[in-house]
């Protein structure tokens, strides 16, 4: 598989601040790549450079073989961009927005019309085609912006928080469309704060912090990197104090959420045995006991030093 995106030593300064510091990575064709990082980490700046919205101070960006700095028009022709905030023209109707995109991408009129009809149907917007976008709900606007990005059938799609703040049905519709498009071979670059989304969708995840790419791998491999941290979730019938749990050997962290205790230790087996011994000794009844695998959230929090977006 060749690269859809190839980024080498990408750097951007804003005055004395280095927003993006010599980051390099590649995204294979047909992949869904999740780009994660806390606020201010450099995600948006990186995405804007890759999509040709701003120019980098240094480094190279290849989009499907085209250099984004020296041949931006050819590179952009292959891409669709869905920003976090809807940027369809509010004074135009949904149909006029789609037709305008068709003209900007140089599509033949008949093809643009056919595609628009198909996309409006797919995104459940057909009956709103003649309405001005200013009257649309957030979910409708986001679906329209995605339709506008897909009109020219891009090989590479950039999405920034595509489901942020959307209702469940719009969110599900968009995610199922993304999976469908990926099945058809579209490469997807997804900037997200939603770990579940990244975990369930992405083949590869990159985590950026303070302008530097600090991790890049598949979600499962990333989770394995912190597998040394074993967690057990236990619930007792009786009320107990944290001090009682603290006496167990090998405990790293304890948290009490609702009627459950979440205990992290160095060794899962030792942790379970200690809990059983403790319950026997103290006459406690265990209601439930689960072992927890590290989540992408845990990876993210550990790698970004606890900063959440």
């Amino acid at each position: 598989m060749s690269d859809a995106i190839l980024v080498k030593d990408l750097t951007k300064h804003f005055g004395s601040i280095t927003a993006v510091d010599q980051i390099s990575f590649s995204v294979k064709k047909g992949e869904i790549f999740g780009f994660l990082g806390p606020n201010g980490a450099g995600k948006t700046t990186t995405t804007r450079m890759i999509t040709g919205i701003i120019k980098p101070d240094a480094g190279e960006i290849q989009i499907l073989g085209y250099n984004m700095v020296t041949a931006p028009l050819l590179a952009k022709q292959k891409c669709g961009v869905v920003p976090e905030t809807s940027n369809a023209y509010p004074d135009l109707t949904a149909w006029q927005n789609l037709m305008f995109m068709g003209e900007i991408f140089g599509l033949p009129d008949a093809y643009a019309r056919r595609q628009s009809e198909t996309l409006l149907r797919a995104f459940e917007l057909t009956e709103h085609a003649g309405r001005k976008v200013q009257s649309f709900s957030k979910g409708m606007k986001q679906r329209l912006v995605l339709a506008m990005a897909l009109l020219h059938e891009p090989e590479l799609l950039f999405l920034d928080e595509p489901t942020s703040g959307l209702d469940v049905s719009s969110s599900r519709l968009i995610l199922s469309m993304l999976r469908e498009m990926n099945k058809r071979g579209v490469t997807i670059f997804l900037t997200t704060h939603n770990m579940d989304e990244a975990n369930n969708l992405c083949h590869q995840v990159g985590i950026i912090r303070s302008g530097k790419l600090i991790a890049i791998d598949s979600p499962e491999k990333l989770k394995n990197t912190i597998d040394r941290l074993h967690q057990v979730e236990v619930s007792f019938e009786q009320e107990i104090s944290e001090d009682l749990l603290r006496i167990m050997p090998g405990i790293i962290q304890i948290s009490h959420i609702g009627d459950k205790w979440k205990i992290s230790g160095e060794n899962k087996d030792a942790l379970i045995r200690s809990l059983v011994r403790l319950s026997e000794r103290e006459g406690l009844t265990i209601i439930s006991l689960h072992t927890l695998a590290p989540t992408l959230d845990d990876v993210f929090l550990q790698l970004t030093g606890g900063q959440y977006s």
Partner: protein
Amino acid sequence: MNSRIIGEQVVRAWAVAKKDIRIYYYKPPVLISGILMPVFLYLAFLMGSKPVPMSFLISGLLGMTLFFTSTAVSPVVFPWEGQAKTLERLVSCPIAPEAIILGDMIASSVFGIAVTVVALIIGLMLGASVLNWVVLICAILLGALCFSAIGILLSVPPTAIPQNIMLLSTLVKFPLIFISGIFMPVDQLPPLGQTLALISPLTYFTDVVRISYTGGGSFPIGFDLGMLLAFTVILILASVVLHKKTMPLRI
């Protein structure tokens, strides 16, 4: 850029122009004020105490109409689009900054020409007959492009607040009216006024329109049209260079 890409970009600039016309110009308040403006200008000048021959008056009125309408909306398109994030959409599409600027200029020129045609028709109805239609049409086309380029240039400061640009626009536009031979021929202005008139493209537009109505002006036809063309080219180039610098700051 090869000729195929240039051709594609011109087509895309036309798409931007159509979008601008739909969003910013083809609106009842804009259309009504566009029609009313020349009417009020005529009324103001015809009802003045000092009688002025129509053939002299009309060149100034056409000059003011084209100048004000071509620079009315174009300065605020970039700030509006920056504010609404629609500029970010355009920049992420395969359209060159030059084509976006050209599209905005075409839309502004079309609006300016349409309103000037209204003023021209009113003039004809009031008895102002044109001696040289070819020169007049060339002047209006070139003037519309030139004044639209002024409007685009005024929108260079990377603010997302349209009012800031409107203020700057007013500060630049009104002084130009007084130094451009609209109210009296350039050769009758005081020496300082005559010197300042040379740096205003409106001077050459007013003069060439006056020639097309009366047969006589302060400069030769070729010089007037040449200066309008030179101003247009310089203003477009300056707009492209400066907008390329400030466009990323709006996004």
